[in-house]
């Protein structure tokens, strides 16, 4: 991680995060949350879009800011997380999960597996629930007594590949 060598005062960037997001082509509703993220490398860098890189860097700059524990999620915040393992099983590649506030809760979803979601009272709770649900789906799809539609056969194949089965 680069936090140690950054000379930029990240704290000064917080109030202008929305402005910065807009300058990078994101609408204010899409601005990326300033919550800390566990990236160890830029995700999806090879197929990177400006959006992905911007999201990464915005989070990267803001991650070291102290006092973010007091941050309260706004209705249009998106928290981006990467999931490397589910239960004791390590995934073949990191899965990007998006967590958004949803009424009184948070909901975590991944574009890659739209059939799975996690809910919880916090970002972390919803992310943990997402992992459990992903694992649960994987176990559910191991039952072959009843045939699946082509959609679910495809999900099963993708999930098996992700889980390294």
């Amino acid at each position: 991680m680069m936090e140690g060598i950054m000379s930029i005062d990240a704290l000064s960037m917080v109030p202008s995060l929305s402005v910065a997001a807009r300058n990078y082509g994101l609408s204010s509703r899409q601005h990326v949350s300033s919550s800390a993220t566990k990236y160890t490398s830029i995700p999806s860098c090879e197929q990177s879009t400006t959006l992905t890189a911007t999201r990464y860097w915005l989070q990267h700059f803001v991650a070291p800011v102290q006092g973010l524990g007091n941050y309260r999620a706004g209705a249009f915040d998106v928290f981006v997380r990467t999931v490397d393992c589910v239960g004791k099983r390590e995934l073949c590649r990191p899965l990007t999960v998006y967590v958004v506030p949803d009424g009184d809760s948070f909901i975590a979803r991944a574009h890659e597996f739209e059939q799975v979601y996690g809910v919880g009272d916090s970002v972390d709770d919803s992310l943990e629930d997402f992992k459990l649900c992903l694992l649960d789906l994987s176990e559910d799809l191991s039952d072959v007594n009843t045939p699946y539609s082509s959609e679910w056969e495809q999900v099963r194949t993708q999930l098996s590949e992700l889980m390294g089965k």
Partner: protein
Amino acid sequence: MGVSYNSLDVLKPCKTKLNVEFRTTGPHFTGWYLLDGVKWARISVPKGAKTIGPSLFGQMAKELKLDKGDFVRLLDCPLSGDEYLSIQRRIRDEQP
């Protein structure tokens, strides 16, 4: 979404109208809707009695392959199991 729903409001019509049998052992209540003997739609309903947020509501509608309007009709009663079946057959038959 004018009216608020909770998990029980979803579980009940899924069981009674769609004959979905829910598994209770996982993190959520999950069950399959069988379309002509094939596992076609999988609905996952969180445990607990919290009000379902708008995103989750949309997610559940999507899981059942319904738009939000039809999902509301399913929960509020007008949409019968037979009507749901005909919607799903139409979706399946329109697939390439």
